[in-house]
């Protein structure tokens, strides 16, 4: 199977770089609406995320589910409000 690109990233908004206001992790973000958010992490960004480190430490490295970083979530909302991450309006 060949890996194919998601057309929505070509026809609509692309993923855009964003840094977490708390830990500085550089990720890529896209919003299709106020309700929808996509985040692409790199191994490096994940290593930098403080909440992620704390979650790993808390579960003794068991590799349990990390649902997401609240600081990054807020950074994204901030970027969306400021227009750095465009949000298509209906």
């Amino acid at each position: 199977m060949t890996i194919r690109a998601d057309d929505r990233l070509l026809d609509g908004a692309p993923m855009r770089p964003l840094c977490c206001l708390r830990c500085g992790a550089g990720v890529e973000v896209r919003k299709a609406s106020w309700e929808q958010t996509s985040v692409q992490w790199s191994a490096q960004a994940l290593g930098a995320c403080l909440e992620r480190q704390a979650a790993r430490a808390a579960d003794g490295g068991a590799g349990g589910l990390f649902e997401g970083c609240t600081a990054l979530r807020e950074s994204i909302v901030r970027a969306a409000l400021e227009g750095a991450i465009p949000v298509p309006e209906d």
Partner: protein
Amino acid sequence: MGLAAGRADPAWHAGITRVLKGWVNVTAVEASTTGVRSIEAEAVPTRFARGWHCLGLSGRFKDGKPHTVNAFGQKLVVFQSGDGGLNVLDAYCRHMGADLSRGTIKGDELACPFHDWRWGGDGRCKKIPYARRVPLRARTAAWTTMEQDGLLFVWNDPEGNPPQPEVAIPRIEGAGRDDWTDWVWQEIVVETNCREVMDNVVDMAHFFYVHYSFPTYFKNIFEGHVATQIMKGLSRPDARPPGKGPRMLGNTSVASYHGPSFMIDDLTYHYDDMDLKSVLINAHYPIDGNSFMLHSGIIVQHSDKLPGESAEAMAHKLGEFILKGFDQDVEIWKHKTRIDNPLLCEEDGPVYQLRRWYEQFYVDVADVRPEMVERFEFELDTTRPVEAWKQEVEANLARRAAAAGRQA
């Protein structure tokens, strides 16, 4: 936010209506005048996914007889040796090709029905009753097996490597415990390639149209060999049978595929008078490129409202309910075509990113690229009124900025 409270909240309701509208009144998007969208599909892969695959309840294989399992494009035999362990071998005897799954278990070995050659769980021929010596090269393919939580797993790896500890299937906490029910387990053969079942991980909208549920929160997380779907949904009043008894308001589901085929779903049903906790297994193994065996299993936690026997009854009821859900999928799969280039709207889930993740199991370990395993998140949250959400975040950020200012 409580489910019941959410219904009365006008802002919440507006958010929901917007999403619902998106799903119900899909306005026709004009096809471009220049061309018709074509459906593209490569042939199904010729290899089978690397990873642990569940063959079902292990007890089923412990009746003193060998069992035939058609998997990975081959015929396999499962048998229990004298030490109690379950073994999986290629079913065809290396002597003259007879089917070992039609043979007999004799002590630690499986005896071929044709000339009684004795095969061990390690794949080696241990004895030929009528021969002085076992010939060289008397070794057949043996699969690594694992028994856990009442289930039998087999490791498939086209490269022939042993399983890495990082991809171990996690333990299921409620399995085998007194305060949980036994497994209610079901298996059905589905005549299509198993990629179809994987697409369910991301296909938000089909839960509404095919399964009559109503997701209000949806998140996918792909990272390493794990693909997760978190879904909070409401029962659709238009799809709920009328009548007395506790009203099901909705459910919360946190479901992860650990590798290419085994999903553990922590599934809580919310009723107007209680929460019901269950674990649902959704697993499959490929029979060949064009069919797979689909398994579903469920256990339910006992509670004050649901002591022993009623919990068992509930597990059966839910088992049937889940099977009905599979039937709804199967009906679609049976008639649909394979499509490598699905045409997605912005309200669809991350189908391409899921398939990028899934691809890691179909290439050699050395060819797994970072993009296949790096963390990706997709979230749709309609449960929080957007305005309130913005204000909350602004307030938090302001608080943090003030705190940072004090420190400086």
